[in-house]
């Protein structure tokens, strides 16, 4: 039967992460003076008032030669060419789809930027346009790469590789985009049994590693068979680990998720929803210690 455990309030200890810190970062809040030196050019996130350079967002000051800008930590996703994103289709328009990627504008996926089912290479015709909804509908999740950025800031996506395409069964988590570390590859097959796609836009997709990869389908056939219980447990555990890392504002990359997963193995999956894990992961990816596990 369902058991409910309760405890009285205890003072919350601040999260102390014993990670070796890099060079000290210059953190500013909106309104803080960055510098009074007039020789600098102002970049994003700053403005000039009374000969002082003042920050307009809360974040880290970045300086490149004479240009000073403030990179905000809690912000919408700002796309760059080559980023891997996970997005949800919001609209089906005439020759394109509108994809929601947690950026300021909906991203665009052109009909000419997808792989046709069957892997054919040909010019898109009227029949293709009318059959768009059979490919991707509203609500579908896709993984794609940013091809270019329009002048208004909207991203143009493409799924022109066999590793991108429509996503089938799995779990989506939405985190802040600044917590996803930029890496060479964002598709990871974790040795614990689940695979994860770390989208640069903060959308993390966890799915079961399928045994055989059907290379000719081009990523639009979805597998609707029930996922086994062991895979489900692994996926739930990975999901709770990622949520724990995000709560403590630790960067997400494959090694950090893996170390958190290994540290969580002694506990039951449902208890991980309650547990607060302090996992110190150094900047070079090595877990230095699991400081404390608290209920």
């Amino acid at each position, binding site marked *: 039967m*369902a058991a409910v455990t309760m405890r009285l*309030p205890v003072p919350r200890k601040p999260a102390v992460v014993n990670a070796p810190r890099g060079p000290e970062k210059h953190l500013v809040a909106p309104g803080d003076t960055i510098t009074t030196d007039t020789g600098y050019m102002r970049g994003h996130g700053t403005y000039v008032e009374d000969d002082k350079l003042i920050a307009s967002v809360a974040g880290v000051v970045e300086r490149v030669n004479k240009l000073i800008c403030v990179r905000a930590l809690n912000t919408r996703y700002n796309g760059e060419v080559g980023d891997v994103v996970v997005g949800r289709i919001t609209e089906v328009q005439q020759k394109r789809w509108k994809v929601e990627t947690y950026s300021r504008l909906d991203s665009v996926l052109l009909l000419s930027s997808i792989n046709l089912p069957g892997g054919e290479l040909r010019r898109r015709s009227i029949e293709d346009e009318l059959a768009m909804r059979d490919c991707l509908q509203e609500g579908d999740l896709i993984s794609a790469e940013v091809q270019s950025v329009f002048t208004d800031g909207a991203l143009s996506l493409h799924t022109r590789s066999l590793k991108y395409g429509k996503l089938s*069964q799995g779990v989506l988590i939405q985190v802040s985009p600044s917590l996803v570390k930029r890496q060479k590859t964002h598709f990871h097959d974790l040795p614990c049994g689940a695979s994860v796609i770390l989208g640069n836009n903060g959308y993390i997709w966890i799915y079961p590693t399928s045994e055989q990869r059907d290379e000719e389908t081009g990523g639009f056939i979805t597998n609707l068979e029930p996922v086994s219980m062991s895979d489900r*447990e692994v996926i739930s555990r990975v999901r709770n680990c990622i949520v724990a890392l995000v709560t403590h504002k630790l960067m997400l990359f494959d090694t950090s998720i893996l170390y958190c997963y290994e540290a969580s193995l002694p506990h039951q999956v449902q208890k991980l*929803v309650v547990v607060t894990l302090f996992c110190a992961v150094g900047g070079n990816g090595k877990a230095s210690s699991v400081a404390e596990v608290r209920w």
Partner: protein
Amino acid sequence: MSERRATLRRLSCSNGASHCSRLLEGTAASRERRKRKGLSAVRREEAGSMAAVVLSEPEKLYIVHGVQEDLRVDGRGCEDYRCAEVETDVVSNTSGSARVKLGNTDILVGVKAEMGTPKIEKPDEGYLEFCVDCSANATPEFEGRGGEELGTEITSTFYTVFSSENSVDLKSLCINPREHCWVLYVDVLLLVCGGNLFDAISIAVKAALFNTRIPKVRVLEDEEGSKEIELSDDPYDCIRLNVENVPLIVTLSKIGYRHVVDATLEEEACSLASLLVSVTSKGALTSIKKVGRGSLDPESIFEMMELPQYVHMGRGWYWS
């Protein structure tokens, strides 16, 4: 639609232009009105499903299969609640307040006790007034009038839940029969919608009522017969409410062939029908309400009704 436009155009050539421009405007305006009504009908449905997220079919399938096997997306069983945090006495200028965080869902409740006249049909009792405000912080859909639909649904549910005689001792709120009584204004503020709103709001309301301090009053009778009410000077001299019998709402969402407790937003998007059951700590059901577009089998309703009593009795001891 195009034939209608063609006839209107023909009419405009033959009759006066003003008459037909009004007709054309009429149809355009009525089309706009119908479109607006259609949109608001859709929004009403969506608001009724509490700011639901859109999911793809394979995602819904994954959730439904998981529920059948008693392993939900975050590892919980079908009968497990998320971690809840209850904090009382958070708002200083109220008589009682509470804040509840159930997973993602964040609710703030404030209770203000004010003097009022009793209702005519119940002259020796005070009463409670509920007001639910869906803040635009939760989702942008709640901006302006968007959250009113959901707010009125929650308010009417709470009036039904608290309509039973024994939930709150209303006779203790009476000062002078037919003249003065305490009215408790319970204001609920939805800060973040993370699924399972009714449960969280009911916990917060109970906690806020538990925290409410009503000042003690004395009624002084003058020589002419006019009554004067005197509030005691001591700020700690107050009466507390007995919240033992205040019911809590348990929402059971039907997903596939099983029902789950404490559904997240994604699970609510997969469930077509839910049962809201309000139970007291002694296991008595005070009200049942069904929400959602889907249908529920009567046998499954009896099955679903057995669960809330266990859930509440587990939590019941904490309030005493």
